[in-house]
């Protein structure tokens, strides 16, 4: 198929940036979206035009490195996939596709479609861990049974890949889904309960400090999340946050 691509080009974080138009032909429907961009880049290199910079790594939908806002949706039109797992069969011959970076104040553009998501790392550093030493003198793994349901829900929350689609989809650029996924995972496990209070307070404060917006329950984050992280996690985090403040 033949496509018209409108791609955001921006030389550096201080550059203004604009949409550029590129035509691409011989796109196969079995290609992934990023393979389509590979083909475009090879073509641009041949023409002496600088290729489009975009982030990607595992191309299996798990590392969370790829991003892209495609036709107004984080990770494009398909559900429950990252951009690297989006296939061209979701588009039609002759389509015009708009490709932009994830946009949020807390995610400044580095170049073209590459953004800086280090704010997510800093939130995790403020409390996204259990304070246990890693030198190996812990108790036996089966000494505390954990109800299967709790373990399963904790696992579902823990599958967040930290891609930032939730922030990019939210009209307030809120990071509540991302933060609540980690808070939930630990609040459901006995190992995480010890520090639950401090964790939720610190992570929420850090989230605000990094410039993410507030949650107004529109739920766009859940719809666009490639891993289907549930809004229930936000409720759970709110409960944890209120309890922590009451018990203070």
């Amino acid at each position, binding site marked *: 198929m033949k496509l018209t691509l409108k791609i955001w080009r921006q030389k550096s974080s201080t550059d203004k940036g604009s949409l550029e138009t590129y035509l691409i032909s011989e796109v196969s429907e079995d290609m992934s979206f990023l393979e389509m961009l590979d083909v475009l880049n090879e073509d641009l290199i041949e023409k002496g035009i*600088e290729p489009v910079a975009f982030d990607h790594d595992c191309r299996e939908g798990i590392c969370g490195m790829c991003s892209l806002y495609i036709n107004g949706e984080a990770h494009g039109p398909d559900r429950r996939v990252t951009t690297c797992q989006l296939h061209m069969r979701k588009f039609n011959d002759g389509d015009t596709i708009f490709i932009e970076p994830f946009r949020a104040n807390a995610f400044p553009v580095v170049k073209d479609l590459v953004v800086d998501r280090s704010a997510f790392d800093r939130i995790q550093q403020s409390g996204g861990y259990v304070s246990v030493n*890693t030198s190996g003198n812990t108790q036996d793994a089966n000494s505390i049974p954990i109800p299967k349901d709790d373990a399963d829900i904790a696992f579902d929350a823990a599958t967040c890949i930290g891609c930032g689609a939730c922030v990019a989809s939210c009209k307030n650029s809120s990071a509540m889904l991302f933060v609540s996924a980690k808070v939930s995972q630990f609040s459901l496990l006995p190992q995480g309960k010890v520090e639950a209070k401090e964790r939720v307070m610190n992570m929420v404060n850090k989230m605000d400090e990094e410039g993410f917006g507030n949650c107004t329950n529109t739920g766009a984050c859940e719809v666009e999340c490639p891993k289907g992280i549930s809004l229930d996690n936000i409720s759970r985090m709110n409960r944890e946050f209120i309890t922590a403040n009451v018990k203070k």
Partner: protein
Amino acid sequence: MATLNSGVPNGELKEKWTQYKDSINLVNPANKRNIDVIVVGTGLAGGSASATLAELGYNVKTFCYQDSPRRAHSIAAQGGINAAKNYQGDGDSTYRLFYDTVKGGDYRSREANVYRLAEVSTNIIDQCVAQGVPFARDYGGLLDNRSFGGVLVSRTFYAKGQTGQQLLLGAYSAMNRQIARGKIKMYNRHEMLDVVVVDGKARGIIARNLITGEIERHSAHAVVIASGGYGNVYFLSTNAMGSNTTAAWKAHKKGAFFANPCYTQIHPTCIPRSGEYQSKLTLMSESLRNDGRIWVPKNMEDVTALREGKLKATQISEENRDYYLERRYPAFGNLVPRDVASRAAKERCDAGFGVNQTGEAVYLDFSSAIIRYGKEQALLNGEDESNEQLVKKLGSEIVKSKYGNLFQMYEKIVDENPYENPMMIYPAVHYTMGGIWVDYNLMTTVPGLYAIGEANFSDHGSNRLGASALMQGLADGYFVLPYTIGDYLSDDIRTGPISTDSKEFEFAESNVKQLLSQLISNKGNHSVDYYHKKLGKIMWDKCGMARTEVGLNEAIKEIKELREDFWKNVTVPGKLNELNKELEKAGRVADFLELGELFAKDALTRNESCGGHFREEYATKEGEAKRDDKNFTFVSAWEHVGEPSEAKLHKEKLDFENIEVKERSYK
């Protein structure tokens, strides 16, 4: 010149590690504060090592090329992690895990290292649970296990098909705790481009800031390479797009011997390739072989009809299917080790029985498992187990709960429903057992330079068993290196900070700068990917699942020519001082073009078949790999002297005192 001394301590196999830990030198906590360690890579090995070294009190500087340490490719490991917990009471033990690993590695690994790995495996599970890693549990709330290829027990712990992700996020969280305490300084989007050796010791690295393009000097008292494997030398592999050999290769060129580069694992269950534009291959976890049965049609007419779209797999009756693994290996069936399963698939496809258009695919079929589970569940629910539709529905739900994310991934990529039609799979490059040579301390032949995880060669011999990569990465990082590095660093307590002003740093930096400007100012007429794809094709055709003397000689020649062409005709757009993804790729491909040549040379000199290394000249009548224990029970460790294929061979003899060396049979 460096010599090979494995440094394996004396004593009984079972006591070696404990006695060794009791006797090695330690660094006291106050002195650790004055010692810096650089770690390159943040996968399971690098991430866990960074966290533990920081916790012990060292000042750690950690580097990764991704935008966050959480992106390292360990995250994509699916199936599980082995540990000799024997929670299932099925006869597992440390010795049995050790035995399975040595046998699985086709008797080409170092006994003492493997035993230590098996010994610390149980700690890993305890550690990860304490960190809040949500492993799968049964209804009683205890940890669940499953079975993997090449073993007869269930010792694999898992978190659905995302075990690597959960373990890596555990290591990442442990790192975050130390980053918050200021004990780890994290350098994201930085790539190591050289090791700096001062007075014979590794004392730092040269790194490029991938955002600004700045070339930086970083010093330390020791350097740890945890940069993973080199599977991307094949261009198409299940590795991440950015996975590369640069850190390991630069270390090799600075004096670290490179061991067994030809030992590559070709994983049997990957999604077949679909076209020329293909950028990478996707793995489907080996755990699928617990419940999936592998087959091709018995009759060529059915194969032809399948390819023409006139027949569906589900329409081929049981008696017309060839479950070739169950036929050839009745004892292990679909759960034979990876090298065996891959070669068997290639054998059937080479014979013309491949089931897709390219002729390079076999079926992985879940229909029997769906019915088996469905009946069981119907019985449990008190429902009618002869109701086919109900049984299928219930069975599909159970299969979904076990492998849901893998089935979803398959459906997204192939656009076919694997609950209804069997999956199509074909082998693909997945893991490299070879790597930087290390001694018992995990130190390379350069003092102060360590290699851990997939980057080293030590534990898997010539074939790695499933769910053992995660085990090795975390064992090295959490429990082995943090002890052994102290023995070396105890000599450095009075050294003080290492200056980056020395001539060695200056020299290394100017070399890196020169290489990069050469790439950028070349202005040739082919892109980096053009060369990478060509290299990949040579590697796959001549250094892939089956190798011959003739093919390997050709490979050496062709890779040499391709490398010369690369330096003459490659084009790298953009500038040095900016984010430049093509420049990053160019540097990595330049190193793959050297490594590939050594790889072929190594395969050429190993005149036997073992594990992932299969030489057509050395096979039994039935087509099984034929080892030559008399002449090849050694590790090939290569010393860089100039051209890659002129490297000097050093042999580390392998002694097996606690295990009987036998023909590896899974029949």
